[in-house]
């Protein structure tokens, strides 16, 4: 049974479709969890609507993973979720194909700020059917929240982290959960070890630097950094085996 368990995880570990953002792979992380977000919106009706859907999206991730990842507050955070009616000129991205964008900034070794901008003029949020609009917006929020933690687009098209909007949305895929567990555990490990990426204080870097949703590439950091990352992966791997055993015993 142990061999089966090990092989299952060995095989599945290398076969997940989820990917981590290059920046997260490079060692940047949130200094503390949960990450506080606020809804930035002047229209009270829209604000309440966005808050409700954001809370649902947060709960979905947290219920499935068992982690406390985000905290939606009324104020006191620079991390923002907001609706844009001017998406294209703000972000310079194609308004017809892009539903939302997550922007993130770093400060030293940490992710210091994140902003989720919803393309409010997109047809997916403006159909004649409010239930469809809600589902699309809710799915988009689940997806963008994943980006804020360091999840990139998944290669598994059934995952909510796939680049295309899922309709109808059937909930988080095991690939999403595996990705979030990985990101969360690595974040936790980096916090405990106070990991500092070798790229954090490069003299030529500005205090804020681009975060990407691009594919991951290997980091050419110092030995200590590499060792920390390897240890993080080992800890995550052991925890996965533990969780798998727990699931088996529950059954």
């Amino acid at each position, binding site marked *: 049974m142990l061999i089966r368990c090990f*092989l*299952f995880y060995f095989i599945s570990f290398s076969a997940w479709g989820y990917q981590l953002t290059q920046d997260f792979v490079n060692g940047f992380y949130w200094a503390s969890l949960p990450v506080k977000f606020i809804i930035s919106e002047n229209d009270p009706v829209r604000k309440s609507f966005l808050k409700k859907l954001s809370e649902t999206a947060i709960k979905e991730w947290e219920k499935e993973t068992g982690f406390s990842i985000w905290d939606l507050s009324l104020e006191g955070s620079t991390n923002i979720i907001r609706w844009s009616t001017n998406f294209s000129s703000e972000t310079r991205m194609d308004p017809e194909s892009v539903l939302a964008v997550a922007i993130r900034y770093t400060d030293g070794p940490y992710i210091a700020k994140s902003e989720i901008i919803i393309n409010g003029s997109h047809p997916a949020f403006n159909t004649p059917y409010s239930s469809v609009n809600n589902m699309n917006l809710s799915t988009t929020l689940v997806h963008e929240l994943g980006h804020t933690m360091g999840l990139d687009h998944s290669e598994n*098209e059934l995952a909510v982290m796939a680049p295309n909007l899922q309709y109808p949305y059937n909930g988080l895929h095991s690939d999403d959960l595996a990705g979030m567990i990985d990101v969360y555990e690595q974040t936790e490990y980096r916090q405990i070890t106070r990991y500092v990426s070798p790229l954090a204080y490069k003299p030529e870097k500005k205090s804020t630097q681009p975060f990407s949703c691009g*594919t991951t590439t290997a980091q050419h950091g110092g030995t200590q950094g590499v060792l920390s990352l390897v240890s993080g992966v080992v800890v995550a791997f052991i925890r996965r085996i533990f969780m798998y055993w727990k699931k088996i015993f529950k059954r």
Partner: protein
Amino acid sequence: MGKNFLILVLILPFPVFSTVVVKAMDCPDQFEGRVKAIIEPVGSTHVFSVNKVIFENHRLLKGNVKDEVTLDVLQNGPFQIESQKDYRVQLRNGKVCWIDEL
């Protein structure tokens, strides 16, 4: 029998994870090209900082794209663009739909 069952059990999970298809976004103008230069903003009045990225169009995939394309790319957004690297770029009306590193 037991051994065969064990092998089956070990092999079964693999196809579940390997049957993955990536659906590409489909914007009207697409090309593969190299980043010739990145011009960072000076005293930008824009809400978010935007870089001007100059691509050399090496291979037209779809639509109508000039030999050299200048695009506005969000600095802290989804794409981390580096000079002299190759990318697959998807556009609509001169605006970025998606950029993949090659």
